[in-house]
């Protein structure tokens, strides 16, 4: 049976219901046709739901979340008026599948008329590809409770690897199955996701939700590649996809996962002799090291990336490595070296007409001058960078340079102006759901309110900043917020608490080899006296 395109008139209600972000929705539409093979499997699934009069356990194999959305919508369409199809999305790892599904049903009050079939998505988050999976042990033992808890069909959707693990490690539960529906990868969806991944290099200005949808689609793509056992040429594509996924994971503050992705992609690129690929992976790893405040490691990665970029004549890669080397040296307090690197990077960006790079390099030059103590020069550069960011619609960059302008004005003693800039920057960070920078500008607001004599307001900001830093594992941010709190506490004459808080900050500064550690140590010594 040939697949049919979704009818135009269906689009709006379906879209509202499946709740996809703009990217997800456009992919969904691009790939709305279902292959004959998958259509047939869908008919089988529908016939299970139609006929079952009691609990039935089914498994559905589908690697790609975009595809599963599409199949779900079609199934719902097919069974309209016959059965009530309830979708349960698990949003993270769970200890007990049964309890989690019951909780979700309770929360959504998903009661409807007539026969009910429950479709569960997202259980793979409880099944890592390696290592212990306690949720599977739990599942294996609790299978007898399922017929007691559910009175109709329960269909569990999983990607290939997770279903295999379940079959092997929860054999008693698997033994209870009344159907396994294995959807094959859809070529249309694969190419739509590939197009999305490769077209648009920068993900940093997307919303968090959008990034999550993209990450899910790319993970599905990697699983489809794996299932289709693709060869050498495709390995290059796989490495590229892994890097894009690494970029998104970095942006979503999921560093351990991102590091794994870059290491994987680096190995593949190395094996097929793709030097540019290796350099790109190294740059990805370097970026994470900078975020994690491990600057000497970051410098190692970027120096390797720089050497490769020069060897193969990749100007853009060269500029990127130079700029980040500048950032790393700036963070280590070596402003002269930083200015030198950023200057070289700026020249390359202008030469190749890379506006985004040019903006970043200008702003970073501003940073370096700021560290040197030349706030006026820093402001000049930040203003140029800001102009470029707004010109090319780079929201994230805009936010950063606004905030940095705030920092520079604060250094010049103009606290009111600083607060204005911070507030603008904070607003943008919140708008684009950029948690890291949100934390930074909250901390900066804390710093600004303190000299205004409003230490209660300042502590409030520091606390918010600390919470975000801890959530996303930003050690430097965590230490800075603690430092700010300590100073406010001291001002409120709560010396004991101030010392404890400062000690915590010092511990972190020492761990991340921050130049702030020695300042902190001196301050503490003074307070103790």
């Amino acid at each position, binding site marked *: 049976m040939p697949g049919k395109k979704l009818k135009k008139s269906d689009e709006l209600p379906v879209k509202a219901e499946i709740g996809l972000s703009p990217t997800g929705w456009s992919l969904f539409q691009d790939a709305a046709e279902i292959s004959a093979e998958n259509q*047939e499997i869908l*008919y*089988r699934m*529908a*016939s*299970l739901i*139609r*006929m*079952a*009069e*009691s609990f039935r356990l089914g498994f559905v194999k589908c690697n790609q979340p975009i595809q599963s959305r599409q199949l779900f919508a079609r199934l719902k369409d097919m069974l309209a008026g016959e059965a009530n199809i309830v979708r349960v999305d698990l949003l993270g790892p769970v200890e007990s599948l049964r309890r989690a599904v019951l909780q979700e049903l309770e929360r959504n009050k998903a009661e409807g008329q007539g026969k009910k079939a429950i479709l569960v998505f997202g259980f793979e988050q409880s099944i890592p590809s390696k290592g212990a999976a306690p949720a599977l*042990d*739990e599942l*294996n*033992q609790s299978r*007898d409770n399922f*017929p007691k808890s559910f009175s109709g069909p329960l269909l569990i959707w999983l990607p290939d690897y997770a*279903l*295999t693990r379940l*079959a*092997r490690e929860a*054999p*008693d539960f*698997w*033994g*209870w*199955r*009344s*159907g*396994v529906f*294995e959807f094959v990868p859809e070529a249309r969806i694969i190419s739509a996701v590939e197009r999305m991944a490769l077209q648009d290099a920068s993900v940093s200005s997307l919303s968090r939700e959008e990034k999550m949808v993209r990450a899910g689609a790319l993970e599905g793509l990697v699983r489809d590649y794996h299932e289709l056992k693709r060869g050498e040429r495709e390995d290059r594509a796989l490495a590229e996809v892994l890097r894009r996924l690494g970029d998104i994971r970095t942006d979503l503050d999921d560093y351990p996962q991102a590091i794994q992705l870059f290491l994987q992609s680096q190995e593949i690129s190395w094996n097929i002799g793709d030097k540019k690929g290796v350099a790109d992976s190294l740059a990805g790893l370097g970026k994470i090291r900078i975020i994690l405040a491990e600057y000497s490691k970051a410098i190692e990665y970027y120096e390797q990336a720089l050497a490769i970029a020069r060897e193969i004549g990749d100007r853009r890669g060269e500029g990127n490595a130079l700029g980040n080397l500048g950032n790393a040296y700036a963070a280590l307090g070596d402003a002269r070296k930083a200015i030198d690197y950023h200057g070289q990077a700026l020249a390359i960006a202008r030469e190749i007409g890379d506006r985004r790079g040019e903006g970043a390099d200008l702003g970073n030059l501003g940073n370096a001058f700021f560290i040197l103590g030349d706030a006026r020069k820093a402001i000049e550069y930040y203003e140029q960078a800001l102009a470029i960011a707004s010109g090319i619609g780079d929201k994230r960059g805009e936010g950063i340079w606004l905030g940095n302008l705030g920092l520079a004005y604060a250094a010049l003693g103009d606290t009111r102006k600083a607060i204005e800039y911070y507030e603008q920057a904070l607003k943008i960070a919140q708008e684009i759901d950029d948690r890291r920078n949100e934390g930074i500008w909250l901390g900066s607001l804390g710093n600004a309110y303190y000299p205004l004599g409003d230490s209660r307001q300042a502590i409030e900001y520091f606390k918010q900043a600390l919470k975000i830093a801890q959530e996303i594992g930003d050690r430097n941010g965590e230490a800075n917020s603690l430092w700010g709190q300590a100073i406010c506490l001291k001002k409120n004459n709560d010396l004991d608490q101030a010392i404890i808080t400062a000690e915590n900050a010092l511990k972190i500064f020492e761990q991340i080899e921050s130049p702030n550690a020695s300042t902190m140590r001196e301050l503490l010594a003074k307070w103790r006296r």
Partner: protein
Amino acid sequence: MFMMSMDPPATNLRDAYNAVLLEPLPSGDPRWVDCTSARGDTDVVGLLAQRIEGSSRSTIQLISGHRGCGKSTELLRLADRLERENFLVVYFAADDDIDMGDLVYTDLLLSIIKRLERTLFLKGITIDERLSRGIMMWFAEVIYGWKDEAKMEAELKAEFELGLKSPVPLPMIAKLLARITGQIKTGHEIRKDIRLKMDPQIYPLIERINEFIHAALPEIKKKGYCDLVFIIDNLDRIVLRVLDEETKRTTHDALYLDHAEQLKALDAHIIYTVPISMFYSLKATQLAGAFPNYRILPMIKVEEMDGSACGHGIDLLNSVAKKRIDVDLIFEKGVVDYLTEKSGGMLRDFVRLLGYTIELGQARGGKLPLDRNLAERAFNSLINEYGRSVPDEFFGLLVDVARTKKVKNDASHQAMLYNLIVLEYMNGYRWCDVHPAVRELSEFKNAWEKVKKVG
């Protein structure tokens, strides 16, 4: 025992689909088919029952069998037979009381006394009050440090008023035992605490349970029963885990071997279920030494050792289908025979294949009768599903099993039996074969060809 009211065999696809469910049959269900002859003429229920009936002293027996081979159905039938012969049967599923992922033998003993107490209560059998109170206060003091009965009563009363309302007022000992086993099943911290207190008290504990049994027996007999039998089902679902990397001692070894003496120390007829893989482990001899009376429920034989069809087994599975479905109306001739053969005699896979065929028929428009082509596609699904559960490194070993019809006593073969990749049959002696669906996997065929070439 009760008889189920039964619908006539299904004559349309929807009814047929709902007639093939993967649940164990209650005893007395007219859908039950006597498969004894096809299990190699071992009437496991009969043999277990005979030993109990023929012995005046308590007997401890083990039963084992593959998942989905009909073990629970057979044990329910055993319970029914013994009840008809006036035994008081305490049948329970261990996993209703105990967390099978973390079970120690004291949990099981506590569960046994709780179940006995409950059965006596339901049957209206009371035992000497002083004795019963003595036993109760022993538990109260050892586990909770309660010495004062009035205080304990207040505590339990408050808890039971908050929690589950019982339709009849429960005796205090029932409340106490329910509290103990409930805490063991659900509370991780308190579970550890209770075990810590029970472990050094193991012999007194067994003594208390035996005291309880001895006090109950004359009362049981007064009610017209001849003896007391425990049947503990689903104990074989205890999760297999290595406890000690050096000695490779597992959770199974810990329960059935290290604590065999304790399991045998109760003074009543008891049947424990045991994971089938234990009979194929290096510890098999040790297990048989500790429990000389064990029975294994084999698969229904649909093929002989030489690969020829076993008509008798095929007929039996056919009658399993006929009791549920109007086979001649729903299926083309030969289709059910084909499915019996491909199930390897495993009831659950047979039922599953029937379901898949019906589901495919419905998806294709529901035209009757369902033909061979649909059945072949159903079997294909099953093949793919087995493809998931067999790790690559098993295929070489599986070819050996298919050639020799034997399994070795090691971890890999144990896992194959556990995951039903290899099935066991009986011809007066045990033999094994690879599941028909696994034999169709290309990895298996390749491994088979390789061996054939070598010689």
